[in-house]
């Protein structure tokens, strides 16, 4: 695997170029341009606020700034995870000619798709910061946890991306399965709600590896407290395993790509 990573590193320029291509392609010939990067997170945040308003109304409380900030802070990374899986899933099948005609490490395709989504994420995060300032969330030393949390998120996204992209090259129905799972995954993940709301049973929700990450982000950005370290360790472990297993899986199937696509 060391040799393969070295080769991947040699092709890093191609990774940048393909990432730029994926970004540019998405915004070429579109009127809104980069504002599109904000559309998806805005929709999710809007939906989240509606849901939270319903919760608050049902329990007879007021909707607080912290709740809105919490929804926003979790929605944006979630949008990144979902879109990176969605785009990488079709990254190999959308580039059939390149897969069958030219040699280079093919994991660059799903990784570049993730990279392009990371760009969207960065744009959306910029808008998010402005929102957090308006909501007077403030900051604390716990923000230092943020890079670790985001890295875990990316590893998880990249790992899943490699698995689904290779899978959908061999079986076209993987794409539909992924679509279906992604559509409903938001209900199984604490994006609109908090795990705390479920009391003791909330632990079950944290088994979803994305959940501790999102809760962790909420903790350190909005609630100014340390994330739950044992659950974060679980997520990081899970993300690392997914990434390396996904990579190994991808590399194992790669030689058969050209003749199976």
């Amino acid at each position: 695997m060391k040799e393969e990573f070295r080769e991947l590193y040699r092709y890093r320029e191609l990774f940048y170029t393909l990432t730029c291509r994926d970004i540019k392609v998405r915004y070429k010939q579109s009127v809104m341009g980069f504002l599109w990067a904000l559309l998806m997170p805005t929709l999710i945040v809007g939906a989240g606020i509606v849901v939270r308003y319903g919760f608050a109304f049902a329990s007879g409380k007021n909707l607080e700034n912290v709740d809105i900030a919490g929804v926003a802070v979790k929605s944006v990374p979630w949008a990144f995870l979902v879109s990176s899986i969605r785009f990488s899933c079709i990254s190999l099948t959308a580039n059939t000619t390149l897969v069958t005609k030219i040699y280079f490490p093919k994991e660059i395709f799903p990784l570049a798709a993730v990279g392009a989504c990371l760009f969207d994420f960065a744009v959306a995060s910029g808008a998010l910061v402005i929102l957090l300032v308006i909501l007077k969330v403030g900051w604390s030393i716990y923000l230092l946890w943020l890079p670790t949390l985001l890295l875990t998120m990316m590893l998880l996204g990249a790992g899943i991306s490699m698995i689904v992209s290779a899978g959908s090259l061999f079986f076209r129905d993987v794409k539909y399965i992924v679509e279906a799972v992604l559509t409903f995954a938001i209900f199984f993940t604490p994006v609109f709600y908090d795990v705390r709301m479920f009391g003791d049973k909330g632990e079950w929700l944290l088994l979803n590896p994305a959940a501790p990450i999102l809760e962790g982000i909420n903790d350190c950005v909005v609630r100014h407290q340390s994330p739950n370290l044992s659950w974060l360790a679980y997520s990081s472990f899970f993300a690392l395993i997914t990434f390396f297993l996904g990579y190994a899986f991808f590399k194992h199937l790669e030689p058969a790509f050209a003749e199976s696509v």
Partner: protein
Amino acid sequence: MDCVYKMFRKGEVFNSLRDLIPALTGRMFNRQDLSSTDQREFWALEDLSFEVKRGEAFGIIGHNGAGKSTALKILSRIMKPTRGGIQVNGRLSALIEVTAGFHQDFTGRENIFLHGAILGMSKREIRSKLDQIVAFSGLEEFIDTPVKRYSSGMYARLGFSVAAHVNPDVLIVDEVLSVGDYVFQRKCVERMRDVIRSGAAVVFVSHNLKNITEFCDSCLLLERGKAVKTGPAQDVISTYMNRSRNEHLIDDEIPVRISKVTVRNRFGECLRFQSGEKAWVDVELRANSPCSKLSLSIYLLDEQFQCVFDTSSERLGHGNFSLNKGDVYHCSFELDLNLANGIFHPSILIHRYDTQTSYDRWEPAATIHINSEADVRGAVNCFPKVVRQAVQAPGNFNPPGQILAGTKNNAAAQPVQPTTHGRL
């Protein structure tokens, strides 16, 4: 490339889980199904080995489906051999699908960077070669236009221009020199020469035998995945030409059939001629039933199977002829091969002019190789000579006939010898 085998499975491919699951369960309960996969196995390459050194060009020829492209795909590591291994020392670049990396919505310039990166060039490298690439493609005016507005020729030219500037240690070329117009094709050939001269090892697959003879020192003939012959390019091409002409179907149903065609020179059967040499084409016909008013047509096709010459025994003033059942008819054509460098296919047609019925056609009946001393291109050789060369300086008029007097080796009367080792 060492003892490479490549197996494909013919027949059904599971492209959807829905197909796979019933097939797998079906296979679990039905053992016979397993053995049937053996019949679907199909060896695209069997025990193929070759070695190409630096500065050498190696050709691979063969009919469609012989396994040429598979060999190249294995060599370029796009596919993995089922058995055997390959070793490539240095940077490998493949001119297989020169526009594969293009994106429709991008401009020519953006695509140069994109495609260059895909071919393994760094950004800095591309930037330093950008002007060269653009100049080579001849698309300066349109370089900032999205490539989706390009014509297909422009598209391919840009692709080739990028790919040709990679500077690889090993270059794989698959039939891409047929890109663009004639002028551009010559440019490509020139560029290939530079690459070989720069010390790269080149593996070249083409149906264009002329290109093969131009570039390659040694050559490999593939037939149904097996190496039939490896050796000097000329020999292998002769073998290929001899084998390909035997494919005429012997059909006893038709009233009259062409049973034998031989091409010979003064001394005997021959497929390699000097331009301007005389050749004889002997044709043998056998009649299965009585036929009348027959005429025998001979025509020459060039490499692209365009007709460059066409005549018939009737048009040559010999009238038509009739045959009875069982008759054997012989006819010899004498041809002056005033043809340019390259490969031509003499072909024969037996037909009846007034009813426009053709009985039998043998195309190509043979493949001949013309070697011309002068560097002439095209279909015909007009045996050119430069007999006068003049430079007229502005305002200084020299009467004709005296211009060459001062130059080194040209007396006005002495024709300039056509150069024998010209560029092409």
